[in-house]
């Protein structure tokens, strides 16, 4: 593909819905116990609020309907009849009492939901270390055996039915971890460590996005949580632990050499090669991910090429520089990256 042909291709890729398979991100369609607790509290509180809203508007309509009309010249009623005033005062007091009772209901519901959220069983949990960067997510899957630890970026795979404990750090500014279908938010705060626990009960692709304003590309700091059956998860994790294989295809080999002798390896790491920088996402298994550029683009060869060629056209302000590679060099690099499954 010629360099100048990339831009239209990129636009076409962005426009096609297939580029971004529908990922769930709906707080009211929970896929796990945490989001489900919150959703049921939500419906309780919304029901109460709806009743109150309708009642207040009905009272207002009643008041406006019953009061006679007047002009500016109508003499004001200085001392309304005390009996009527008392009656209305009673009405106000009763309405207030009802409001207080309803507030207490919401409070109790809120506190008990909080309890429920805190009591997610955590046996046999998957431990993930998640670090926020401007503007991508670095994930480290912890393991008691150091050689079984592995890194990935912008995509968490979790086993269905097993709790996940995510430890949150930030490398620069404050970010916030938010996957609406699974749980509420937790901030990633520089200098502090936080933790969030959740469980996915249904397999699926749940989209998350940074929820704390973090600078230029806050809009595209997305993250996918892919819940898979335990067997598939184990296979995935095993694959992620393996270093990158040497490519067999000559074009991909050339791509690898370009990667390692050019600018790419200044920031990216590929396990099994000399590239070991950690300033940018780990690319050891980049081809296995559904999306690139922190959820911005579907992971297709065309998009990958467009991204490498001119990331600033896709995510202005992102920290990846434009790379002026000759078209066949670009293809070679893409071919190499496509082998990193």
């Amino acid at each position, binding site marked *: 593909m010629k360099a100048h042909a990339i831009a239209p291709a990129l636009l076409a890729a962005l426009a096609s819905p297939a580029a971004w398979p529908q990922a769930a991100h709906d707080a009211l369609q929970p896929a796990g116990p945490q989001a489900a607790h919150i959703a049921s509290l939500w419906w309780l509180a919304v029901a109460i609020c709806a009743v109150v809203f309708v009642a207040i508007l009905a009272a207002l309509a009643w008041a406006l309907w019953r009061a006679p009309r007047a002009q500016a010249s109508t003499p004001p009623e200085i001392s309304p009849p005390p009996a009527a005033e008392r009656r209305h005062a009673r009405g106000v007091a009763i309405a207030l009492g009802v409001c207080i009772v309803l507030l207490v209901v919401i409070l109790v519901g809120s506190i008990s939901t909080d309890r429920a959220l805190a009591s997610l069983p955590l046996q046999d949990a998957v431990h993930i270390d998640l670090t926020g960067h401007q503007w991508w997510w670095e994930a480290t899957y912890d393991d008691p055996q150091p050689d079984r630890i592995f890194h990935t970026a912008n995509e968490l795979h979790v086993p269905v039915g097993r709790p996940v404990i995510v430890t949150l750090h930030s490398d620069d500014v404050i970010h916030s971890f938010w996957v609406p279908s699974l749980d509420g938010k937790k901030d990633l705060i520089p200098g502090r460590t936080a933790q969030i626990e959740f469980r996915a009960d249904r397999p699926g692709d749940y989209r998350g996005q940074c929820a704390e304003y973090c600078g230029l590309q806050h809009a595209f700091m997305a993250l996918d949580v892919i819940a898979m059956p335990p067997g598939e998860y184990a296979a995935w994790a095993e694959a992620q632990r393996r270093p990158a294989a040497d490519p067999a295809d000559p074009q991909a080999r050339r791509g690898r050499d370009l990667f390692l002798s050019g*600018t790419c390896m200044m920031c990216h790491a590929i396990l099994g090669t000399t590239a070991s920088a950690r300033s940018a996402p780990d690319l050891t298994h980049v081809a296995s991910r559904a999306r690139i550029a922190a959820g911005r683009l579907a992971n297709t060869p065309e998009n990958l090429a467009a991204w490498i060629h001119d990331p600033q056209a896709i995510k*202005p302000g992102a920290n990846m520089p434009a790379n*002026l590679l*000759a078209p066949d060099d670009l293809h070679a690099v893409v071919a190499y990256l496509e082998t990193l499954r």
Partner: protein
Amino acid sequence: MSSRFPSRARHRLRAHGAAWLCVALALVFAAGCERETRRFDPKPVPSDLRTQPQSLPDLQPGQPGPGMRETASAGRYDEKSAYEVAQGKMLFRWYNCSGCHAQGGGNMGPALMDTSWIYGSDPDSVFSTIMDGRPRGMPSFRGRIPEAQVWELVAYVRSMSGLIPNEAAPNRDEGLGGAPPESMRKPQPPKDSDAKVGG
């Protein structure tokens, strides 16, 4: 605003006010825009340098390499832009420049926050130092770092000894304190000695 205010005076006031406001705005504008530009798309200038590795042995330290046409004045370099300098500072960390130069105080490599510049303090010289390397350990980053980023590094390196406008230089960074922030450094007048070494 006030109906009691005589209308002629009000007009005069408005005219004067507007004129002064324009002057003031123009002044601030001139100073502000330069500092605050964020150029996200420094499109690489077509160049065949990247794909054709240079034969480094031909290079003399301090001499421009063959085919090297990049100069600060060509418009790719902007040390008045706070954003470019800040990017330079980030890249200084990312590319592990501090591995040799520490935070500018020098370690294996020379200090960068003092007055002595072995190979010249002007942007073009610093650029070629980074691009082509220098004897005794400074590697060449040609082909490793895109030119636009090298210019950002140049601006940052110069800010370390206060050679760029303070308004554009970085403030203190998050993390353990060390040297005073670049924006507070007094200019260290360069005592260039590149003529001696290069000649």
